[in-house]
C-alpha cells in the first residue's frame, strides 16, 4: 500500500474539523475554536503516524 495513501486519514479529520467549525459558523450554534484546533492537530498527528508506520514497514506487507 503506497505510504502516501495514509495521508488520507489526515484529510478525513480535516474534513471533520471543517464541518465542526463550519457548521455552527454558517448555520448558527456554538463555535468551538479549541475543539477545532484539537481536531486539526489530530489530523496532523494521525497522518504523520500513519505515514511513518506505512513507510516503516515498507517492502513487506
Amino acid at each position, binding site marked *: 500500500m503506497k505510504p502516501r495513501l495514509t495521508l488520507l486519514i489526515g484529510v478525513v479529520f480535516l474534513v471533520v474539523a471543517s464541518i465542526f467549525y463550519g457548521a455552527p459558523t454558517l448555520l448558527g450554534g456554538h463555535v*468551538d475554536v479549541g*475543539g477545532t484546533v*484539537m481536531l486539526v492537530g489530530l489530523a496532523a498527528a494521525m497522518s504523520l503516524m500513519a505515514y511513518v*508506520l506505512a513507510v516503516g514497514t515498507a517492502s513487506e506487507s
Partner: protein
Amino acid sequence: MATTAMTPAASAYRAGLYEWLTTTDHKKIGILYLVNSLIFFFVGGLLALAVRTELAMPGIQFFKEVVYNQLFTMHASFMLFLFVIPILAGFGNYAVPLMIGAPDMAFPRINALSFWMLPLAGILMATGFLTNGGAAAAGWTSYSPLAEKAYSGMGTDLWIVAVILIGTSSILGAINFLVTIFKMRAPGMTMFRMPIMVWTMLVTSVLVLLATPVLASALIMLFIDRNYGGHFFDPATGGNAILWQNVFWFYSHPAVYIMVLPAMGIVSEVLPVFSRKPLFGYKAFVFATAGIGALGFSVWAHHMFTTGSVYLPFFSLMTFLIAIPTGVKMFNWIATLFRGQLTFSTPLIFALGFVSMFLIGGINGAFSAVVPVDFAIHDTYWVVAHLHYVLFGGSVFGVFAGVYYWFPKMTGRMLNEGLGKVQFVLMFVGVNLTFFPMHQLGLVGMPRRIADYSSAAGWNDLNLLATVGSFIIGASMLPFLWNVFISLSSGKPAGDDPWEGNTLEWATSSPPPPYNFDRLPEIRSERPVFDLRHRPRPESADLQLAAEASAAPESAGPAGHH
C-alpha cells in the same frame, strides 16, 4: 498436541524476586501488570463498597460528605487509571508478541519502565489520603472550578502528578506496541492474519498515543492554575471553566475505547476457540475496530451537552454513528457462536457475559446520545448504570475471560472450572443487581456523586438493592482468589494447548521459554495453530523433516520455503 517446542520441560524455570524486579521479559512484565492492576481493582472495589454502604440508606451514617467525595473520586481513579487501562495493556504485553511470533516487545527496557511507573503513581495518588485535606475529591473528571486551589487541597496535586505519570507510562507502552506490531511479526503473518486481539491492541495504542498527551496538557494547565497563579480555567479573569471539560473529554472519550477495545479483542479470541468455529467476519472486525477508534475522537463533547457550549447536532450525530461499528461487532460475535460446537468452559462463560452486558451498556448509552434525553439524565444514576455496564459488564468480564483463558499459558496450570463458574454466577448476579436498579434511579432523577438523599424521594429500596448487589460482587472475588491460590500450586497441568486454540501462543510450551518460540508453525491464515493441528498427514511429515533438518537456526521458519 500441536507443539513446536523443542525442549518443553526446560521453559518452566522458577524466577526469584530479583528476576521479577528487573525483568524486561514481556511475559513477566505482563504478569506484573496483571497483579498490580488486580491489587488496585481490590482497593477500588473496597472504596466502592464504602460508597455503597453509605448510600444503602438515607442519612449520613459512616462518612462525612468531604470524605465521601474522596471515596468516589478515588474509586473511579483507581479503577480507570490503575486497573482497567493497565490490565488490558498487561494482557497486550503478554499476548501480543506471542501471537505475532515475536521474541519480545520492540523496546523491552521501556516496557519495564512503563510498568514500574504504575505502582509508583498509584502510591502517589493514594498518599492523598494522608494529607490534611484528604485525597482528590473532585471526581475522576476533576472539573474546574471545584478542582482549583480554592476548593481542593494537595490531594488533587498528587492526583494530577500521578495521572501524568500513568499517562506517560501508557504513551510509552503505545509506542512499544505499535513498533512491535508493525515491525516484528513472524514471516507469513500479514496484517490481515493477525489475531483480532492484536488488532484491538493496535487501535488502542493509536488512541493512547494521540489522546493521552491532550490529557497531559489539560492536567498541566490545571496544575499551573492551582500552583503557579495560572488563569486558564478562571472565568473571573477571562479564563474559561468549560475549557477544562473540553480538553479533558477530548482525551477521556477515546479513553473509554482504550478501556474496552482490548477486552473486545479478548472476547474475539475466546469465542472462536470455544465455538470451534472461525471468527465470523474477520475483516469486518478489523474495520469496525478502526472505525470505533476514528469515530471515538469525534464525540467527546457528548459528555458536555448540558454546558451550553457545545454544537449539539454534530456530537449527537457522531455518537449515533459509533453504534454502527459496535453493532457490527456484536452481530459478528453472535454469528461466531451460532451453530458452533460450544464448550461452556469458564472463559466462554465470561465472554458470553461480556456480550450480553455490553449490549445493555451500549443501548443505554445510545439513549444518552439523544440530546433531549441527555438533558434529563445527565449526571444522574442513569449514567452510572451505563458506565458500569460497559466497564464492569464489559471490560471486567472481558478481563476475567482473559484470565481464565491465558492463566494456563502463563503458569502451566489450569484454573479450577467449578470455582470459576461460582465466581461468574456471583459476579453476574451482583453486577446486574447493583447496576440495573440505577437505570430507574436515574430516570426518577437521583443525581450522581451525592453522599446522601432524602428518604422522601422514594429512592431507598433501589439503593439498598444496589448495595446488596455490590457486596455480592465483593463476595465473588473470594472464589477467584482461592482459585488462583490453589491452582498455582496444584492446578491440573495445562500442557501447550489445553483449549485447542487457534493462535500462535498455543504453539509453544506453557509457560513459554523466555525467547517464546523454538520454532514457528507455518503461518498461512489467521489460525496458524488450528491449521497446524489439522494439516493432512503427508505435510506433517514435511514438518517433521523440517524439524530434523533445523539443526541450523536459519531454517527455523515456515516449512514451505524450501
